[in-house]
């Protein structure tokens, strides 16, 4: 199979507005990935599926990743001229990674038996711009996996035929796989009449005294 660089170049030649970028990977696995412009995600996916050299007909894995805002401080040594003398001064440089959610797709070809090609789509942020194009119309294998991403990460997939929660129940409000998710103190808490009864009962006896049994 051709290298990721070549695939990125061919995507940009075929769909110039896709703005495909190679995402490096320093791990020994060497699985580099392709990041494309959010709105053209489905077009690129269709191209990857139908291109004669790639024929990526099999979507193996689709998953979400949460990247909250990250500010890293690095000390950088710089040469500065102070009072006419050149000195080495340490400066703290702040770099800021904007917050976003990411959907990662691992693609293989069953016909040509190669892969993986890793496709990444990123949302604008983690709060209001969380819509990505659904790839379920391209590979149906994404159907349940995108439902899972929606459920656990809160990415809205536009064009998904049946976007409901997959693992959590429908009334659940949060997205548990996000890094800043806080667990409720009691998962089984339900506001039941029992609580009202309890408050009422407290008015019937003095604090510290055992409740009188009903006569």
């Amino acid at each position: 199979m051709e290298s990721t660089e070549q695939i990125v170049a061919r995507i940009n030649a075929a769909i110039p507005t896709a703005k495909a970028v190679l995402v490096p990977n320093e791990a020994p696995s060497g699985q580099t990935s392709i990041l494309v412009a959010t709105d053209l995600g489905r077009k690129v996916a269709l191209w990857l599926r139908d291109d004669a050299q790639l024929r990526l007909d099999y979507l193996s894995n689709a998953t979400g990743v949460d990247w909250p805002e990250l500010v890293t401080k690095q000390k950088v040594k710089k040469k500065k001229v102070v009072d006419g003398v050149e000195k080495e001064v340490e400066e703290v440089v702040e770099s800021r990674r904007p917050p976003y959610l990411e959907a990662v797709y691992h693609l293989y070809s069953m016909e040509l038996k190669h892969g993986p090609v890793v496709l990444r789509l990123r949302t604008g942020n983690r709060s209001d711009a969380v819509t990505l194009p659904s790839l379920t119309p391209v590979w149906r294998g994404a159907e349940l996996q995108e439902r899972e991403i929606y459920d656990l990460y809160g990415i809205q997939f536009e064009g998904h035929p049946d976007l409901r929660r997959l693992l959590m129940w429908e009334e659940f409000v949060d997205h548990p796989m996000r890094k800043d998710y806080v667990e409720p103190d009691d998962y089984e808490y339900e506001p039941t009449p029992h609580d009202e009864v309890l408050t009422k009962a407290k008015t019937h006896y003095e604090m510290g005294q055992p409740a009188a049994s009903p006569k």
Partner: protein
Amino acid sequence: MHDTRHLDSQAQPSYRVESRGHHGASDLLEVSMGPQHPSTHGVFRMDVVLDGERVVKLKPVFGYLHRNHEKIAENTTYLASMPYTDRLDYLCSLTNNWAYALAVEKLAGLQPPERAEYIRVITAELTRLTNHICLIGFLLQDMGASGTPLMYAFRERENILDLFESLTGARMMCNYMRFGGCRVDLPPGWLEQTSQVLDRFPKFLEEFDRLISGNEILIARTQGVGVLPRDLAIQSSATGPVLRASGVNYDIRKVDKYGIYDRFSFRVPLGEHGDVYDRYMVRVLEMHESLGILKKAIQDIPPGPIVDPKAKIRGFRPKAGEAYGRIEGPKGELGFYLISDGSPNPYRYRVRPPSLINLTALEDMCLGQTIADAVIILGSIDIVLGEVDR
């Protein structure tokens, strides 16, 4: 029109019966099958709409066994989630271990020594045998062949579980693989014991074949039922025996040649029709091929170390990066996707569950079939809810 009034007065927690008025000639009946149902293989629910006995709509409902395995693994060290992978597909803990170890080895650049690779192949193929016999036993149970085939199958499975117990200390929750190798070496005499079990195995397969494969009722119940066409199988990312029963030649042992699978010659059984019978037969034939691999591996296994000396148990921190590792599990492609940020815990830990993804096309397989066939179609896909819901 079906009279359902008598059901209203009784407590029927798992069957919700609702009259939907007239739809053409007959009435539609909505049945909520599960989550407590003997033939859904665990806490799995299907919302089925029936026209008489025929399925007109089927929606699977997941999540009853969800415990957010991925979040738990992201909050602990790499090694600490190794025993937890046993609990995903609890019938195949050794292949789960291998898939996870493979992904971490790709992430950290570890290379298991020769002997460890052989042990991995032997344990994985034994796991494939146990999984497939279990499945066939359960499938026949679902079909109404109560007891006998399942007990025959479990008798053989028990022999293999005894081998796992003497090797790892546990029958099912093995927790055996480590990053860059295996936890302990084979106990003395283990390979001979394994050979003895394997020598008896073809006799069982033959006996089982005579008892079941040509059985008239089995053929009538399974052939042409739950057909998954080739194109739909690829489109919906089906893997493993489900995919190969539809005639797609895709076995990750052959495609990726992970571990040392390039040293074994084995055939990949393929189905023609993609029905329940083909899915059954593909598994039976796969067991025959596994026996061949096992024999060769037991013959060739070299002495030597079982863990990569570069592998660190304490303070294991892979460099920042990501890796996706996958193996041909007994149920299909089992993959682990890991992102490291250089800390002792994985930043992202994802399991690609074959059981869940093979269910994508469940509705398409079941439409137009009877409700009793929906049960065996689900059985033939081979799911374990520990992996579906994670």
